[in-house]
């Protein structure tokens, strides 16, 4: 569903993404990990067509993002880390606007919107202006908006920022359910427990290069570390500019 071949992007003298190749099949939740400035957001922005790669190709559902951008965007959704919402619209107006942008031809669009708002616990807020909603409510609204055109691929940059535990559980369940229905999800996060919890496969990027790829077990094999994902991540990405990994915690409980 997502096919990236020899992707490169340079900003001045900085190689942000370096010969990245990746294949993500349909119905997979792929988690992209990496230290700050590793190239995760740049890669996502290239996949969504916001940034133009210096070289390499990206295909989403068979569509070349650079050559067939409209076709590719029609089947994808994107949730950035700092999303934009129209503050002077109500949730219903905003959702109808997004449906119009994607030319959603649902026979009962209003009913679909109402049931989505109710599912995400936003029915009470349906008449409020978006500017009046709390951060968590806005995030939930954004998820409804992203799913409204039933995309086949979703890109999410830091999906859990600022959410309470209830919302986090809801989003995690939702993402897993969507993947079961055949949706492909690529998300980036710094919360390693989230990746460990919901990802089918994990890719670790550092200095623009994909340095490890696979299931948690594969990463253990690749890194030669039998510890947690945190240990594997810190070992793989240790560099002069990243702090050294912490020593293993001492077991304070006496052995039985």
């Amino acid at each position: 569903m997502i096919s990236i071949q020899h992707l490169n992007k340079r900003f001045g003298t900085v190689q942000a993404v370096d010969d990245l190749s990746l294949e993500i099949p349909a119905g997979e939740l792929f988690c992209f990990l990496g230290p700050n400035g590793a190239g995760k957001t740049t890669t996502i922005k290239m996949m969504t067509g916001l940034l133009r790669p210096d070289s390499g190709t990206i295909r989403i559902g068979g569509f070349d993002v650079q050559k067939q951008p409209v076709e590719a965007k029609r089947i994808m959704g994107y949730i950035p880390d700092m999303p934009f919402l129209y503050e002077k619209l109500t949730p219903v107006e905003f959702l109808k606007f997004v449906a119009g942008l994607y030319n959603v031809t649902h026979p009962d669009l209003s009913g679909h919107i109402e049931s989505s708002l109710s599912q995400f616990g936003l029915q009470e807020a349906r008449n409020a202006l978006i500017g009046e909603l709390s951060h968590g409510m806005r995030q939930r609204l954004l998820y409804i908006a992203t799913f409204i055109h039933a995309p086949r691929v979703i890109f999410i940059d830091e999906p859990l920022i600022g959410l309470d535990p209830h919302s986090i559980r809801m989003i995690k369940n939702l993402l897993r359910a969507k993947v079961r229905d055949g949706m492909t999800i690529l998300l980036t996060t710094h919360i390693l427990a989230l990746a460990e919890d919901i990802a089918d496969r994990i890719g670790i990027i550092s200095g623009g290069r994909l340095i490890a790829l696979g299931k948690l077990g594969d990463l253990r094999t690749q890194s030669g570390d039998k510890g947690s994902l945190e240990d594997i991540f810190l070992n793989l990405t240790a560099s002069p500019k990243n702090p050294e990994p912490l020593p293993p915690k001492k077991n304070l409980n006496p052995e039985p």
Partner: protein
Amino acid sequence: MSPLTAIWIKNWNTLRNLRRILQRESIFKTVFILLFAAGMIGGFFMMFLNGFQFLASLGGGGFMITRRLFSLFFLGLGAMLVMSNIITSYSTLFRSRETLFLLTAPLDTRTFVTYKFIESTLLSSWAFFFLMIPFTAAYAWHEKLGLVFAVWTVLFSLPFVFLCGALGSLISLAAVRWFPRSRLVWGAAAVILLILAIRVLLQIRPVMQEEATFILNRFLPGLQLATHPLMPNNWTAEGIMALTNGEWFRGSMLWLVLVTNTAMLFLLIQEFGNRVFYTAYQQVTGSPDIRRRAPELLGWLDRLLAFLPHDIRVMIMKDIRSFLRDPLQWSQALIFFGLLGLYFSSFRSFHYNEMPPIWRNLVVFLNIFSVSSVICSLAARFVFPQLSLEGHNFWILGLAPTGMRRILLTKFFLAALAMVTISAGLMGLATWMLQAGPALSIISIGLAVAISISVSALSTGLGALFIDLKQPNPAAIISGFGGTMNLVLSLGMMLGAILPFGLIWHWRASEGLADPLFIKANLIAGLWVILLSGLMVSLPLWLGIRSLKNREY
């Protein structure tokens, strides 16, 4: 539903919800803003009407000027629209957060650029209508023209606005696409080139022209360009006049010329935007090469200010660096002052210095008025919202071991220093070019300095009193109640300071006010300006400091 239809429905809903937002605001605030707008339009109407009446009193020459003034007025508004659209297009096309959202939607570039072009033209055209309505209304009143004149004006104005908007958007797209970013010097060079181009255009002289026209062109800068048959402002002005006078064929032809040219530019925007926008967007959004950037901007200034207390020095450096790194802010200021500087430096070319004293005095006081007006608008735009724009970072200042009094006074002194330097420099240039006497030079520079200091204090103090840390958009901060009140009081202060001196000098030149009385009147007016400035500096700053100290964050 097409994406473009969805966008227009969204815009309509936003507009409809504005009523809801207004209903929650205090009635007093809404009425105050509406009254201010109505007062401004009424004031402009009276000013234009007086101007037309004065020109009519001049006889034949006045009539010639009046006809051409219409073209000149549309030339000025057109230039303003183009410049305003260059800046608005840049922010709506490249800097708006909506752009990122829409670019991930299945919207082709042509549709996106079309929408953004229309949006930026509509956003930047309010000032055009704000000035055009009282001007044409005054003209219609003076010439006793019927309602049909308003219909023809609207009919011609709409394509004219979009034509100028398209020119601005084209320049903006081309500049972003081909000018390397992060080079402030390129931005400054572009503004200087623009000013030079205007200067050259204003001095266009035909080889052959009638004597009367030749004389008129000497006194009205840009008249030759304004009445050129290939200029859209001339089609607009002449077309409105032709239809008003019942010249149906000529009027219709001019309207069609205007509309077809606008339509052609519309197509050009779509085609050019489709080819250029995406690459231009990459230039703007791609991460800058941070390795080439110096770790500290103006490090030498930081060292130069080492004598200041450390907290004041760092606050000054932070404000200067933030301002300079936002070209959208300083480019507007540069255009304002660049044009004023250009105008003042052209005085001798137009022989203003050879005018009789009564006229020269009038020009000097009009110059003080224009410089002060720009100072007022800049203070409203940049000084008033500066505390609010600290936004979520205000806790850094709030937690620092420095007092709110020091923070506010630092902001005031920095703003006042910048405003005084600019206004005194411009007034010095204007009086020197006009060859004004030492007394008039001292008074005009003194007035500019007093107004700059007072307006800086007023904007800083009211900015603290009406602080809104949740609003990141400066336009929203300044268009609120506090911002409007600040502008009204600034303009009031300006008039209160200039008018007494203006009247005394006009009285002296027209009716020969005796020396002792003239000196005494000047001294009283000077004392009044000192008292007024003292009040305008101390009261808002005191209120602002008190408000900041008592505020919970």
